[in-house]
């Protein structure tokens, strides 16, 4: 394929997705620029000493990446999906051994002057690999155990990510559940998942006795309505027993899986502890920055909380605070709207696909984008515990913008065919 061919075919690239992408990247860059306030320094936009300068370079590299992606043959993507997954797994394993510890995680490798976070590409590779797996023809055994195989692809990635102490990213791999659900995963799994989450939160919030009491009440209600159906009654009894066992496991799991700071964050979201100057400092400052934005925001370069560094990680994980403080509720609505338009557009396009690979892939990345978006904003507004993951296309970070750009533009490219 030549450059002219790209130009000729570019008309059919989905213009909506490209526009959303450009909007998000632009908003992101300005948000990073605004957060690096320094009243004394005359800013050189291209300086490499400031995040916005470096981000500009990464945006440039992303454009180059887009060009390359549009130039390569689609078949290359289909046929190398699993290889790419394998390659990323290898890198992830290497990272475990060579990565220095940065704020508790061993997730970064240094290449020259830059740090890379391979897990970002692991997300892309998993999406591609899942799409490939679902779209390939399968043996009978594969067909029977399709969810097991698919879960294996995700599970390995999750375990490696966990080993890197990158809980946030590990959590994001669960986003493929959206793809699974769309492809026929039983609703029961989701119900079980929701129950597990509910019991977990309820037990942490109150205690084992209350939770069991609540479960028993629900069970007895079902018992009454289904007393003619012996099978269902028996099933419910199994569920009850399993639930009760799980209830007692909750605190053990909670104390063993999570690290101290994560437990503190969960406790503060559940309202069990309040320590605005200590453990809850970040959340508190995040809420203050967002809340003080008001309806219209304080205006560009006039935000106090961001510019005076009250909000931590303000160009990466907490970038949303800057946008909320600077542009207020209106700005937040616009940002949320663009994100939802992007994600829904991907789903709509996926549904239209005749090529199953693109369909699966579309759902995979729609889920990834939504999880990132929902977890990131959810934590800044105090709905979810604080988990460090980037806001796609917005947050500062070379690997993250390269990976998200690749995810989106592979879809745009494949969609075109």
């Amino acid at each position: 394929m030549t450059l002219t061919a790209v130009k000729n075919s570019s008309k059919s690239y989905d213009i909506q997705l490209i526009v959303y992408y450009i909007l998000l990247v632009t908003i992101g860059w300005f948000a990073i620029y605004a957060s690096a306030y320094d009243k004394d320094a005359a800013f050189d936009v291209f300086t490499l000493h400031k995040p916005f300068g470096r981000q500009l370079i990464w945006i440039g590299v992303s454009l180059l990446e887009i060009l390359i992606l549009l130039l390569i043959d689609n078949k290359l993507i289909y046929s190398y999906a699993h290889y790419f997954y394998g390659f990323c797994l290898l890198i992830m394993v290497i990272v475990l051994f060579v990565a220095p510890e940065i704020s508790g995680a061993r997730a970064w490798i240094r290449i020259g002057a830059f740090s890379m976070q391979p897990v970002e590409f692991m997300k892309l590779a998993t999406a591609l690999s899942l799409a490939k797996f679902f779209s390939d023809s399968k043996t009978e055994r594969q067909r029977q155990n399709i969810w097991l195989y698919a879960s294996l692809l995700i599970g390995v990635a999750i375990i490696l990510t966990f080993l890197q102490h990158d809980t946030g990213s590990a959590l994001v791999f669960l986003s493929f559940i959206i793809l699974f659900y769309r492809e026929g995963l039983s609703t029961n799994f989701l119900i079980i998942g929701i129950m597990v989450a509910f019991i977990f939160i309820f037990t942490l919030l109150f205690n084992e006795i209350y939770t069991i009491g609540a479960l028993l009440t629900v069970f007895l209600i079902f018992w009454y309505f289904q007393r003619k159906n012996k099978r269902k009654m028996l099933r419910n009894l199994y569920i009850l027993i399993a639930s009760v066992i799980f209830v007692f496991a909750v605190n053990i799991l909670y104390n063993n899986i999570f690290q101290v700071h994560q437990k503190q964050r969960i406790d503060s979201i559940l309202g069990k502890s309040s320590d605005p100057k200590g453990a809850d400092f970040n959340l508190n400052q995040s809420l203050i920055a967002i809340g003080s934005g008001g309806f219209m925001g304080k205006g560009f370069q006039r935000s106090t909380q961001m510019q005076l560094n009250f909000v931590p990680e303000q160009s990466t994980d907490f970038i949303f605070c800057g946008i909320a403080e600077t542009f207020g509720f209106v700005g937040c609505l616009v940002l949320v709207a663009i994100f939802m338009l992007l994600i829904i557009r991907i789903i709509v396009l996926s549904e239209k696909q005749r090529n199953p690979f693109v369909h699966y892939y579309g759902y995979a990345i729609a889920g990834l984008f939504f999880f990132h978006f929902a977890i990131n904003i959810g934590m800044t507004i105090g709905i979810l515990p604080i988990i460090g993951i980037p806001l796609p296309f917005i947050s500062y970070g070379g690997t993250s913008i390269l990976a998200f750009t690749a995810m989106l533009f592979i879809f745009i490219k494949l969609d075109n065919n």
Partner: protein
Amino acid sequence: MDLSGLKKRQFIIMGAMLLIVLIYVIKLFHLQIIDKSYEKSAERNAMRYLTDHPARGLIYDRRDSLLVYNEASYDLMVVPKEMRTFDTADLCRTLDISTEDLLKQINKAFNYSSMLPSLVYAQISKEDYSYLQEKLFKFPGFYIQNRTLRKYPHPVAAHILGYVGEVDNNILEKDPYYRMGDYTGLSGIEKAYEKELRGIKGQRVVLVDVHNREQGSYDNGSQDRAAWAGQSLWSTLDLELQRYGEELMKNKRGSIVAIEPATGEILCIVSSPGYDPNLLVGSGRSKAFAELMRDTVQLPLFNRALIAIYPPGSTFKLANGLIAEQEKILTASTIYNCNGGYRVGNHTIACHHAGATNLVAAVQYSCNSYFCRTFYNIVSNRKYGSTQEGYQVWKNYINQMGFGVRFGTDLPYESAGIIPSVDFFNKKYRGRWNGNTIVSMGIGQGEVSTTPLQMANLMAIVANKGFYIKPHIIKAIGEKEHANTRYDEVIDSRIDKQYFDPIIRGMVMAVQAGTARRAQIRGISVAGKTGTAQNPHGKDHSVFSGFAPVDNPQIVVFVLVENGSWGATVATPIASLVMEYYLNRKIERKDLEESMMLLKLY
């Protein structure tokens, strides 16, 4: 796999996503629009209201000499978090402290807060400051904070000037002006004129970052207010005279009060022994204060001129003479015979002289018999009906002259002295008493007690021939032309002018050829009265009270020297030297001056 059957799930997925986003939007709406508390929190976070402390007003003497000013003082502060490795030995050398002490301070700072500044070394001298300033770049995290300290260029009038110190809870509760750590006048002029001296605080609104570091002014300083320096005060004190008085009183206990009679302005007020006001400044104040407090022998903090009460002695006779004249109990030509004493029952109040005496001579020779008789004649006069009534008439006059009451002007704490009430004597003598029972009060002994300030005021009444203005210490506020009018009320002593003539004549005679001859000054006519305040604990106190020049009184001087025996020996020459110095600005009697300065009475 049956795609078409699962196709509807796309709507469930999109619906769930939109539901989550809707929850987020509602939460955002609540955070940003409903809940206004975050705006305030943001303000608290980022804005600091800093107070600019105004410079405290200066204090001048009546001739524009500076008595109190502010001196910049420098404290070395540290923000532990900003500290980097530095040459501790170098810093210790600069500050002249041991490494141990420095590390102790830094540890303390760490324990307090790693983000907020803590004091490392207080009151760096000006010389060390400039030296340290040059080197400060080598010590990151350290910075110098400017403060001001009260400074007294001349170590005089400590009791009257007072001192400043940190406000206590009591003051904090009463006056919203003050914040913890602010300074306020705690005694003397500093306290009496605190409102004028303190000025108006300024305010700066600055933005601070998360580490509490200043990041510039808020909104270009639109909410900033400059501090207004406190008003300067002009004291009525004459610095040179004050210093001279203190030199004369060196090594003696006692006090000098000099007043300009026409205005009530205090020219000098000495309480000896005193202390250097510079001791009670800055960080050493509490320690120095405790040390001065501990000195129970010298009582350097005790302001004898205002608080100490003494039997007034013979100078009190003048008041009794005046009252008797005003009450027409005697005239200038009334003669009482003195046989060397005044007999009361089987007890005699001795008198140094003998013979027929009129009022002028009685004053001149300080005749005890004469004034005992006079006092008796007032108190036990038939025209009042009873002793009680008679005493009350006398007491009213005495109170009117400022005895037994406080002036309540801008001076530090004063004693009221003691002028007993009728009830007091009724109780003491079970109602059976007359003028002779308490006749020693007629010569300034017995139950009467006065302060040196009150005695000086009596002499001002005499000099003014009938009126006085309450003695006070501040002449002008803000500008020298802006006179302090708080204490310019003319108070009538209720003694008519003509009655002063014989008294004054007697006092002039006392100086020329009586008990107070040592008060004579060449070329200046002096009126004076010696006294001896009886002291049951030791040698009597030497007292002199007088004014000069007689025709146009410029200065009233009262001197009391504890254990100085009788008036003529110590108090009279000192008072005379004070008058001479004030009126001539030089001393001719160098020998007298020298002998008085060298005289040691403790």
